[in-house]
């Protein structure tokens, strides 16, 4: 068994353990004796904690994989789906649907979020054109991200009632609280489809290690790769934001932590980043749920509190490397 397979297996075992922890943690203690029985507390497990747990794993996997694919594609260890306007676009779509009070329908909000993510992606592709330049891509992403952020702020300031305002703000913070099986059935198929597209990019990402020109002369089709990345990341991130709100930094942190274990090869990074993302969100969600706070710490905020310092350390390390 190769080192990479062993590492993936280790992550998978970690996920299984984290699943069990996630099911066991919560405000209400459900003793083992009644698991699977007729006791109404068993419903807490099957209808509340299980969907929430599955959703954490699915969303985490989607974000981790998206981060790994984006970093490989942009050859930039600081790249994150959130950085290039995809998350912001999805959030804007979601917020607009909340603003108009459409959240009542289960499918409208995700549809709006996916449309937002896809819209941001389409704009990104339009702005960058066929040049595939890294700087252009980055700038376009930053612009999209800030425009979507401003429009979201506009929606908040124009909200008709304080209730809508609080709903939007809550949304933006990202959480897995009170998610149902309905959310799982929205996120799971979409993220699976996105992951399938991203899984097809692995070898092209390896070739990109040598730079764009060398990759092209090795037979990489840059247009096909771009379409796969844009659609794959769009689906994964759109569905994540639709069901869990904005949860940042997973796509930044996980690939970075995992990279040394798989020999830094971008294709070898994809699967463990998905597994690692699932593991990270499962653990983080268990922690915020288990903390003895009056109202639950939002998962999105917890991840930002973890991700901010991480980003800073990474930046300082890179600066030292350049000096």
């Amino acid at each position, binding site marked *: 068994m190769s080192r990479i397979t062993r590492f993936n297996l280790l992550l998978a075992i970690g996920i299984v353990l984290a699943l069990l922890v996630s099911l066991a943690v919560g405000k209400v203690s459900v003793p083992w004796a009644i698991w699977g029985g007729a006791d109404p507390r068993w419903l807490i497990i099957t209808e509340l904690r299980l969907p929430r747990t599955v959703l954490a794993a699915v969303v985490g996997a989607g974000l981790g994989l998206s981060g790994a694919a984006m970093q490989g594609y942009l050859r930039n260890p600081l790249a994150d789906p959130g950085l290039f306007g995809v998350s912001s676009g999805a959030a804007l779509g979601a917020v607009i649907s909340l603003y108009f009070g459409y959240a009542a329908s289960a499918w409208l909000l995700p549809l709006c979020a996916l449309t937002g993510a896809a819209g941001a992606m389409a704009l990104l592709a339009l702005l960058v054109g066929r040049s595939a330049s890294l700087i252009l891509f980055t700038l376009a992403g930053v612009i999209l991200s800030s425009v979507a952020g401003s429009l979201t702020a506009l929606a908040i300031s124009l909200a008709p009632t304080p209730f809508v305002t609080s709903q939007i703000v809550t949304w933006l913070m990202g959480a897995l609280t009170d998610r149902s099986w309905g959310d799982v059935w929205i996120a799971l198929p979409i993220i699976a489809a996105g992951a399938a597209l991203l899984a097809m990019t692995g070898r092209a990402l390896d070739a990109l290690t*040598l730079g764009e020109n060398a990759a092209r002369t*090795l*037979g990489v089709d840059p247009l096909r790769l771009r379409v796969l990345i844009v659609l794959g990341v769009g689906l994964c991130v759109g569905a994540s934001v639709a069901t869990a709100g904005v949860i940042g930094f997973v796509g930044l942190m996980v690939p970075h932590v995992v990279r040394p274990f798989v020999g830094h090869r971008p294709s070898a990074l994809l699967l463990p980043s998905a597994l690692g993302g699932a593991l990270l969100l499962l653990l983080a969600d268990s922690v915020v749920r288990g903390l003895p706070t009056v109202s639950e710490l939002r998962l999105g905020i917890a991840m930002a509190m973890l991700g901010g310092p991480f980003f800073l350390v990474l930046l300082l390390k890179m600066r030292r490397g350049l000096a």
Partner: protein
Amino acid sequence: MTAPARSLVAQALSLTLDGAVILDAVSATFAPGQVTAVLGPNGAGKSTLLACLAGLRRPDAGDVLLGSVSRTTLDRRDLARRIGFLPQTADVHWDIDVQTLVALGRFPHRGRWGETAADHAAVAQAMATTDVTRFAHRCVNTLSGGERARVLLARVLAGEPHWLLADEPLANLDPAHQLDGLDCLRGVAAAGAGIVVVLHDLNHAARVADRVLLLRNGRVIAHGPPDSVLTEDLIAETYGVATHIGTTPAGQRFILPVARHRR
């Protein structure tokens, strides 16, 4: 001369960028088993010619032929197997080890289900040819400039291309490593591949090339054996410098630029 059926042909390549003529009807035939050095002053169109041959740039007019077939009719993978390209800027974006990097050269050959024995053999052969086998497991970004250049060459050779296009592979190398690099190119040509290499040093060209293609302002000034192309007159016409051409006791030609012509 070799059979044209196996040649790489630039056919009246023309390219204009932002109103500036980069290539002006450049025609040249490159033969397998030979090293062709592309020479010329900065901005002569050397790298652009190489990019057109490699398929990285589409010429406004003209065509690149492999044998008698236009490269535009061949599919991406097929072309990648035949033509290996060594870019001037040697990017290695992640901290991968030498063996992993060299194996990337097998990209156009690899099937869906991982590496075959042929892949392993080609990678091992390429690393042996360029003498990098002993640091197969070191991280590429910790190597010295000379070692790194050899590793990048090994990456191209691992693809077993019929053609090797190299854009200034010896830039930034010390004299010893430059000589190693030139010997390596000769060895690859001796094994049957055709090489088109952009060089800046006239002496390197005199040492390694079977043919020299002299470019200036996107036009071919001369194309032929080094002895007949690297003359004082043609060098003066191309570069605008006066040179002293001599021979070492061992019989090697050297070309020393001595003064700039005032034009």
